[in-house]
């Protein structure tokens, strides 16, 4: 085991400059993907109703229904409206508790009526929840959330630069957080996840999580003196990987078991982000920092 590990670090030691190309390619690929998504869809994400206006209806209905059929029924009934229907099931069992419909094109009253007819039940405040967002509000929310992410990012960068006061290492941390967000966004787009206000909150949280490991790495490598650079690097790697894995597993489990779509969205985005973060922290930031530290230590 120890032998293998050394080999790994030998490889790292020899090839860190070349290795740096990989995250750069992934980052560029992600940007291309997002740009392409933007060209096709007119925006960089699939927006949920909370960010573009419309209604979200939750119906508690214990009988198993064919979601696709219901969805098609609604699309047909409301002239090709944009409708999205999902099943709602409870924890552990596959027991169906109801379904959720999202749409930007149907009026709440009409949807309610259509559902009452289709399922031949009466919908009231015991079995029916509705969330409605005006379209202008949705748009302004979206704009604000983008600003929030931007501000959050700038504030974070400020904290990092003030703390380390060294351009290259600070830049490496900020670049890592940036790459992490971009790649996470690309993956989210790729799997077709719709994002609402809570999803954006997840991206903000990701900024915080993402730099945890970077700060750990930078502090250990630059501010410590004991051992060689590679030894400190290895120590940081062991700690960083443990905490990433602990968080990823905890949030994955939470993602699997929660029955709230709001929480599911938040956890999924953070988990994707944390996995991308392992890659960026240890390859991108790691290589840049290693390069910097070696240069400082040996002057070459």
């Amino acid at each position, binding site marked *: 085991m120890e032998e293998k590990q050394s080999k790994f670090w030998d490889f790292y030691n020899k090839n860190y400059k070349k290795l740096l190309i990989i995250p750069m390619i992934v980052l560029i690929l992600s940007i291309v993907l997002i740009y392409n998504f933007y060209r096709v869809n007119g925006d960089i994400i699939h927006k949920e109703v909370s960010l573009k206006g419309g209604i979200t209806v939750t119906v508690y209905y214990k009988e198993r229904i064919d979601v696709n059929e219901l969805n098609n029924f609604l699309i047909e009934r409301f002239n090709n409206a944009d409708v999205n229907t999902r099943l709602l099931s409870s924890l552990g069992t596959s027991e169906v508790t109801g379904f959720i419909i999202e749409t930007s094109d149907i009026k709440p009253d009409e949807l309610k009526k259509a559902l009452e007819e289709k399922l031949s039940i009466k919908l009231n405040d015991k079995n029916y929840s509705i969330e409605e967002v005006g379209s202008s509000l949705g748009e*302004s929310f979206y704009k604000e959330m983008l600003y929030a992410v931007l501000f959050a990012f700038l504030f974070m960068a400020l904290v990092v630069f003030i703390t380390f006061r060294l351009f290259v290492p600070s830049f490496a941390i900020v670049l890592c957080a940036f790459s992490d967000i971009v790649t996470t966004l690309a993956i989210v787009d790729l799997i077709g996840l719709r994002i609402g206000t809570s999803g954006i909150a997840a991206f903000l949280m990701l900024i915080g999580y993402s730099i945890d490991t970077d700060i750990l790495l930078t502090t250990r490598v630059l501010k410590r003196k004991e051992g060689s650079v590679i030894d400190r690097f290895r120590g940081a790697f062991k700690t960083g990987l443990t905490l990433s894995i602990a968080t990823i597993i905890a949030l994955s489990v939470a993602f699997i078991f929660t029955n709230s779509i709001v929480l599911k969205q938040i956890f999924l985005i953070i988990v994707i982000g944390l996995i991308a973060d392992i890659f960026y922290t240890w390859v991108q930031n790691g290589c840049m920092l290693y390069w910097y530290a070696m240069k400082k230590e040996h002057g070459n």
Partner: protein
Amino acid sequence: MEIKKIIWNWKVLFLLFFLLISLLAIKPNPFAKGVVVTKISEGSSVQLQGIKTGEIILEFNKQKITNLDDYSKVINELSKEESKIEIVTNKNNYIFLNSGNLGINVKSVEKSNIQKGLDLAGGTRVLLEPVSDKEISDQDITNLIQILKTRLDVYGLSDLTIAETKDLFGNKYISVEISGASEEEVQELIAKQGKFEAKIGDEVVFRGEKEDVRRVCKDDGTCSGVRDCYKVDGGYNCKFEFAITLSNDAAKRHAEITKKLDVNVSGQGSNYLDKKLDLFLDSSLVDSLLISEDLKGRETTDIAVSGPGFGNSEAEALEDSIKNMNKLQTILMVGSLPLDVNIVKMDTISPVLGSEFIKNIIQVCLIAILSVVLVVGIRYRNVKIIIPMIITLLSEIFIILGFAAFIKWRLDLVAIAGIIASVGTGVDDQIIITDEVSGKEKAVYNWKEKIKRAFFIILVAYFATVAAMLPLMWAGAGLLKGFAITTIVGVTSGVFVTRPAFSVMIENLLK
């Protein structure tokens, strides 16, 4: 020995102090029984008995009521016929006769001071945007909130929060959260500006303002109530009527205007003027009243206002007209809103899902903690690390809940996500501390130095996380404020209270 040393360390004492404060703030009472009365219908026998909102029903028809299920069971068993009802509340005993709907809304009694947000407790949330051609001042907003509050209160909805929120661009919104109200009621009550006008032809006799309307008869059967119900095409129609007292100025106007009118002779004994008194609410006609001949040119201050209610059955029509009457009375008593408002967001959440969410969240948290323990257990294989970690994680959750209870913050789903996220950073920090103090460089540095080094990393990460969360306090009209608050409180208490205590536990256990 070690335990003693740990407990008497000031960092641990500090943690214990915070835990105690949180416990006091949360004030858990898991054995609380009964259901709380949240709303009492207008004119119901319960109202006549003097039961008030906020009373806790403990017994109903000799059956113990411990929770909402018990209550709905006895309510479902009630017969439609007139029957004897016995209610024991925490304040009094009531025995009376009742038929049909009891006219009482209840919710389960709170088992702690932790307040649940809308998506966990059920209810209606509305985000209002004031609309005006002119600049909207803070005073306008304060007035608007005051009137909305009074309106909802007069109407009988008291379990609510109204607050002003701003977004990043400085737009002003008002958010209203009400538990136990239907979407329709809320919509009518708060989005209506409530401009009431009584006109004869094009001339205004009086408006629904304090200057014109001196008194409105409400909750008094002698001058307010549903007077008549009859069958119409496609259902039933009921008519409500209540008395109001006009100011002298309004009465003079009434005299001036009616003086000019002619009398229509109907030939059936009672004669009316040739124009009607039209009642408008926000420019739509509520009712048209015939004006009897003897009111012509008279300065009358006593006027009866009326309006309709419809329904498929007589009971529905009756209920509808009581609702309409209550609304109109409320608007006339409170006056119109100083600004027009738009509903920009409206959520109505069924309480059923909320309780499922809560159960689920507790399970999810436990499973998540367990999985963290598993990962950490595999990595360190040391109970002396795992136990402090569990204690720390649970303490962090407890302190966040305590803080939320203390500032009366309503915890919603995103706030819970914030708790889980901040506890996640707690795991990160604990692993950093553990690795820092149990590293190979043991010999080189003393404990104090090691802990200091760990906290350098933790503090930088802390400031970056808080900085990233700050914009959320304002963005999105405060809808994600809960997430920002629980995260910031969580990481702050974590970094300054629980994680230092963790380092003490680890230090003493591993030394």
